[in-house]
């Protein structure tokens, strides 16, 4: 076996045999694919598998006579590994839908496979806005966030408060490039300038050299177009090298609550970023987070985990309405037709190009003195309404756009 794929049956209760006969192999099989062991494992990883199972449970699949199974695999952030797993899942293991898939390069590869096999792919983890732009397919829904929304949320807020000259530290693969481009566009549209960028390999340990280049650019804002461990190391070392003291500001373009936890509030305080979901925003989120933490070693869920939950709920809704999971494009069309609603993301819709629409939030990391209890890390500064949060459909270049 080239990868570890543990099949765990989540809801193996079935009613009378005929109720689920129209589902392929008699089962709706959900494959959670993400980074189970690397730098994105806390952001996605086993937490996403838990969220998918929780969604199946909360949907009451068993009571409705649906037989749903959740399996998971580690794509190791490598497109070739992810593609192999996806092909095996779709072709021989009877997986009907792949969910999560952080790492845009892997997601772009799987997006094509899902289309080719006419299955379903629901992306909570990936960021590249190309997934609903020039790479869009009728088999894909981009659930939680994308590079355009991050750029639009964080980038615009910073440009409006006078941060006009930017320099980027960019992770050297599809995601970093997309985030750098989308943020650069926002900066330029707001009358700012991009002075330069340096591309670093994924999962870099030492950022001092790149930070020094950013420092000598004299840019006001150093945009971090990277994620996970790379963002953490960039911010930690920027503090050490006196970048913030020197008057330059950091902008973490993609940050997760787990990154803030790793950095500690002392280092992370004052950072602004855009998120789709925060555990401490309302009672429903807090209840979900409490259960999540109990099952995941005390960690709080990230927006990606919440997105996996929400996307699985809506998928099951569409499949149940169709009474079939066989035709992937039809299932996705049904998902776009039905309004979305669940306890974590509230009400929303899915656009023709595959973009799930919901509000986004501009948040600021609290000072250590403001944090009252564990994981009390963020202030919600502003709600960005769904109508403004996402790239207008016509600008994406997706052939499905209306």
């Amino acid at each position: 076996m080239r990868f570890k794929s543990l099949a765990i049956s989540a809801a193996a209760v079935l009613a009378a045999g005929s109720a689920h006969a129209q589902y392929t192999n008699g089962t709706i099989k959900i494959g959670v694919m993400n980074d189970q062991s690397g730098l994105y494992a806390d952001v996605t990883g086993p937490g996403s598998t838990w969220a998918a199972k929780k969604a199946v449970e909360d949907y009451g699949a068993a009571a409705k006579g649906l037989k749903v199974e959740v399996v998971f695999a580690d794509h190791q952030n490598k497109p070739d590994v992810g593609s192999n797993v996806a092909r095996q899942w779709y072709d021989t293991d009877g997986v009907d839908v792949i969910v999560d898939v952080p790492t845009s390069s892997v997601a772009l590869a799987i997006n094509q496979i899902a289309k080719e096999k006419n299955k379903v792919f629901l992306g909570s983890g990936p960021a590249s806005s190309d997934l609903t732009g020039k790479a869009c397919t009728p088999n894909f829904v981009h659930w939680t966030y994308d590079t355009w929304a991050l750029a639009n949320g964080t980038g615009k807020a910073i440009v409006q408060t006078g941060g006009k000259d930017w320099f980027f530290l960019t992770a050297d693969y599809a995601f970093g490039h997309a985030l750098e481009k989308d943020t650069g566009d926002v900066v330029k549209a707001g009358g700012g300038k991009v002075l330069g960028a340096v591309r670093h390999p994924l999962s870099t340990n030492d950022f001092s050299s790149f930070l020094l280049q950013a420092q000598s650019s004299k840019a006001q804002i150093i945009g971090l177009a990277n994620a996970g461990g790379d963002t953490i190391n960039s911010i930690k070392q920027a503090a050490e090298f006196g970048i913030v003291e020197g008057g330059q500001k950091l902008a973490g373009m993609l940050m997760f609550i787990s990154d803030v936890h790793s950095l500690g509030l002392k280092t992370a305080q004052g950072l602004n970023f855009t998120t789709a979901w925060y555990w401490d925003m309302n009672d429903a989120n807090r209840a979900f987070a409490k259960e999540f933490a109990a099952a995941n070693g005390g960690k709080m869920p990230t927006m990606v985990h919440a997105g996996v939950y929400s996307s699985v709920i809506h998928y099951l809704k569409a499949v149940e309405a169709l009474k079939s999971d066989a035709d992937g494009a039809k299932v996705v069309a049904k998902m776009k037709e039905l309004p979305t609603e669940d306890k974590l993301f509230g009400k929303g819709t899915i656009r023709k190009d595959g973009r799930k629409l919901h509000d986004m939030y501009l948040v600021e990391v609290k000072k250590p003195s403001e944090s009252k209890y564990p994981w009390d890390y963020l202030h919600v500064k502003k709600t960005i309404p769904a109508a403004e949060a996402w790239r207008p459909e016509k600008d994406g270049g997706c052939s499905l756009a209306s």
Partner: protein
Amino acid sequence: MLFELIGIPPQALFGQLLLGLINGAFYAMLSLGLAVIFGLLNVINFTHGAQYMMGAFAAWMLLEWAGVPYWGALVLAPIIVGATGIVMERLFLRRLYHLDHLYGLLLTFGLALIIEGVFRKQFGSSGLPYANPLPGGTRLDFMFLPWYRAWIVVASLVICLGTWFLIERTKLGSYLRAAVERPDLVQAFGINVPRMITLTYGFGVGLAGLAGVLAAPAYNVSPLMGSNLIIIVFAVVVIGGMGSILGAIVTGFGLGVIEGLTKVFYPEASNTVIFIIMAIVLMVKPAGLFGTPK
């Protein structure tokens, strides 16, 4: 003149050279431990990266759970990690000395995966914060030098030269080297060779732990920190010559500088340049720059 030719201002170049030296300090310390272990035990210690990670975590645990500050951890953590190495040698490695190198490599590789897996399960993959014990720095003509980074270079130079002196210039070192060549003869002189080998392994592992403590405030304390670094460090050892102590030190610092320069001229290649150099060195001098062909 020269600087204009290559299109980089001298300030930037000096800054990058210094940063390269700082990174090289880690390569030197880690490859030194590997070289000591390989030179004296003939074991290719793939657990080294995990032991470096354990050093950083030991520092974190000492601080969080026992309130021991950085400077205490600098002494205690290497002892703790070294002790785990001694246990490992007694329990497992010892049984493999009469077999091919490959068995030791497989065993240590497997143990590394297990140790990293346990830490990942316990602490997650995104890492833990560890405060910088020497905040601030000094503004040089060409760059801002954090005190902590300066400390890394000084500490690493002292450790490297001290180890070299211990092994190459003292009586204890001469016993060690003799025990490698003719263990039976050294044993006949009344020296407990198995114990000496155990302690040597503990020392090499302790060096990895010490590097881990030094790394904790600068890098992210995460279960993956060792596996990211160990491959590079192995390349350093191969380039320097397996088992050569001086080779490990010189190539460690040298490759850090070369990598630093790559980050200026072509950053995308910064994580491959060391392997390109390794390939070239292996073609020209298969025993490594400082190694002696056997």
